[in-house]
């Protein structure tokens, strides 16, 4: 018998012997890396308050999270994009709960003299109509476009809210995380990008959006008051109605303690 199956057998037997351990109840949370820091912090506090519970938190992407929940590999999924008809077709029992809001900030390199742009200008930059900073009030130099990958919920939202569904210039650099966009913009003088609020702090300069001669900068307060026009919801997902443990965790995140954590990580509480 091949060595591999012998090993497999041994391992399975062994794990049957060892496993179980503390006898705690387990809650598996998995999905979007955007929500990851919040979920992890919530998990720590939740476990502190509930010693009989083990919460494990995992990244991998919104889609991986939804699939994991649908297949029963995870209890609660995290998603930074809307749950789509395709997802519902595969797993009809999905239930979606909004737990936070995220503002999308447009960022440029600190050395860039531009400090505000209109939505039309941002659109023009991203669809290639403007290629030089001089054309939008800056001091000249080639514009380097930085965006997210095509499956990103952040980009999807940006496409709808800012691009009005239009196309992007082909030479746009694509990154697959907020951190990646931030890193590139912070080290490239001519770059422009968009990130969640939590990443608009150090190393980059957040650009204000000007409309009707007022400039609104992306802050938590501006998002809460709906003055800042570019923001979206973040979700937790379960398969079917959430049971006791899942419901407790979601409830925790929606409660005052949870929403405070949401704020600490740079997101916007629901209220």
């Amino acid at each position: 018998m091949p060595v591999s199956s012998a090993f497999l057998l041994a391992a399975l037997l062994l794990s049957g012997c060892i496993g179980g351990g503390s006898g705690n109840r387990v809650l598996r949370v998995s999905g979007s890396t955007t929500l990851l820091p919040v979920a992890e912090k919530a998990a720590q506090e939740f476990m502190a308050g509930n010693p009989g519970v083990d919460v494990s938190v995992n990244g991998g992407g919104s889609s991986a999270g939804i699939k994991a929940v649908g297949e029963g590999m995870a209890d609660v999924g995290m998603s930074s994009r809307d749950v789509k008809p395709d997802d519902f077709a595969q797993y009809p029992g999905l239930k979606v709960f909004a737990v936070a809001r995220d503002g999308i900030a447009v960022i440029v390199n600190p050395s860039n003299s531009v400090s505000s742009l209109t939505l039309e200008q941002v659109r023009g930059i991203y669809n290639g109509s403007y290629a030089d900073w001089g054309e939008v009030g800056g001091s000249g130099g080639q514009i380097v476009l930085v965006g997210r990958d095509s499956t990103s919920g952040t980009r999807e939202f940006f496409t709808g809210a800012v691009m009005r569904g239009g196309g992007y210039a082909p030479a746009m650099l694509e990154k697959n995380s907020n951190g990646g966009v931030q890193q590139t913009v912070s080290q490239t003088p001519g770059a422009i990008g968009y990130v969640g609020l939590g990443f608009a702090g150090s190393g980059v300069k957040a650009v204000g959006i000007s409309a009707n001669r007022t400039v609104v900068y992306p802050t938590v307060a501006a998002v809460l008051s709906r003055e800042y026009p570019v923001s979206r919801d973040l979700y937790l997902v379960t398969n079917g109605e959430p049971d006791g443990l899942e419901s407790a965790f979601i409830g925790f995140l929606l409660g005052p303690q949870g929403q405070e954590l949401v704020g600490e990580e740079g997101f916007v509480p629901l209220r």
Partner: protein
Amino acid sequence: MEGARRGKRNRLLEFLVERALFASALFSAVAVAFIILFLFRESLPIFLGPGLLDFVLGAAWNPVGSPPLFGALPLVAGTALVTLGAMVFAIPLGVATAVFVSELSPKGWKPLLKLCVEILAGVPSVVYGLFGLVVLTDWIRVSFAVPTGESWLAGSVLLGVMSLPTIISVSEDAISSVLREHKEASLSLGATKWQTIWRVVLPSARSGITAAVVLGMGRAIGETMAVMMVTGNAAVIPSPITNVFSPVRTITGTLGIEMGEVAFGSMHYSALFGLAVLLFVIVLVVNSAALFLLRHRQAGAFGAGRGMVSRAKSFLSGNMVLLAGLAVVALAGMSSRALAASLLVAFALLYLLLTRLRRQWTEKIAFGAMGASFLLVACALAVIIYYVFSNGLPAITPEFLSGFPGNSGRAGGILPAIIGTVYLVAGAIAIALPLGVGAAVYLAEYSRGGRIVSVVRAGIDNLNGVPSIVFGLFGFAFLVIFLKLGVSLLAGQLTLALMVLPTIIRTSEEAIKSVPNSFREGSLALGATKWQTVWRVVLPPSVPGILTGVILGMGRAAGETAPIMFTAAVFSQRALPSSELEPVMALPYHIYLLATSVPGAAGNAYGAALVLLVLVLGMYGFTALIRAGFSGRRNW
């Protein structure tokens, strides 16, 4: 009669052993078949719907446009260009360094130098990615005054460095195995040391060097994480084609950035799997080409083959360097005639120089070049190590090493990730080593050529080219979901084992083949059975080569994020795993998430990277000591 009973038992044992070894060899082919089937199943809609030609030759990749466009041409071009660029500098640099370490380095330094090279293999791909993003692309931007350094050039340089350890280490093993008597024969005829190396040693080691290059190329083609971070990922074909500063997007980069978020079951999802199938085909073509070159060069050397076709084939493989040079000139000519002309002149001068010079001068220049190659590689190593150390050292405290993470990883420690990584690597090697060595023994000692063996070999070579993220997806769909193992240590170990299997098989096979036949004959003539001969006389001298494969495999298993992302790893959990069926934390995954998704965690990310590096170095040092012990006994 006593002898007859023993004879019967021997025959039974021999039969069982041969079957078991055959099963090990077949395992790789079976695994590859499974993976291909899985890829096909998931990608079927894209081939049935928009159609094969539109997919492969389509010039625009815009999955979220209206209508969605799934043209793979820019991605294929990106993969080809980045890999080509990487090989252009990694192959000469790698083989030259291997020659240096094996033949020209001072006595006694060899194990240390070899280890230094292998340390490069121990740097996790996410660290390469970070280094590439933060240091390399910025350097390119500033040095060449381009708007951004995220480009084809950055991708090639990074991938080249990542494949160097494989190319160097496996080539070095091959070069060291060339029989002393061949070298002595050459020297005794009055050849210089360099002539001996060029005319006798390198051709003798051809098989091993080809293996090294193929493995290295597989590493480059399949790398996801690092290339995703530095090439810019713009799905364009550089124009002109030689613009190395243009951003590009590779197939693996596409898989890396889009797979995590794509809606399962959608056309986009199928298109991504279609890309994976395409990549498979590319790897198949590359491997076949390497095999072709190897076989026909040998035939050419013995003057076999009379017909036009076989003469053309021998010419092709016998004049590779010349043809490669012409290709470079042609490529340059496409963008600038002046460049092509000056390259032509430079090559001609170089040729004249090398052939007209006195032998002693040629030797000095050649040795100088070898030494310079080694220095370059050592410099690359030093730069990366310095980068990791200087950024990571501030984060190292006793609490960091012994505690659990807090504040989303910005505070606290990484102990569970360290333990998780150790478990994963140990398990992966425990599975892959017996399977790999078994397969290698079968291929080298028992197989008789023929259909099945070619299929097995093709399987192994193709397994080598599978991108790390495809391993992760396959592991997720098959091990986690289908076999119901769940996200678990076991699923991660199996996935990682699959990933390192080809390396171990290839290096073990080369090591076994380099044992002289006279030992086998001597053993058989004393009445030993085939298996006894293999176990007692063939395997012990092969151990150093096998351990090289183990070292390279360990480095990869410890440092890869994509294979464990969906199969074994979690970002945080309360306690250490208590069974094989629980998930684990793992260092590369932890580093990746801290660096990309947790703002303000950069310091700890580098700290974890430093710890991972030291951990891998520890594993290497231990294995290298064992290897040096075995090498000492080889003095034929």
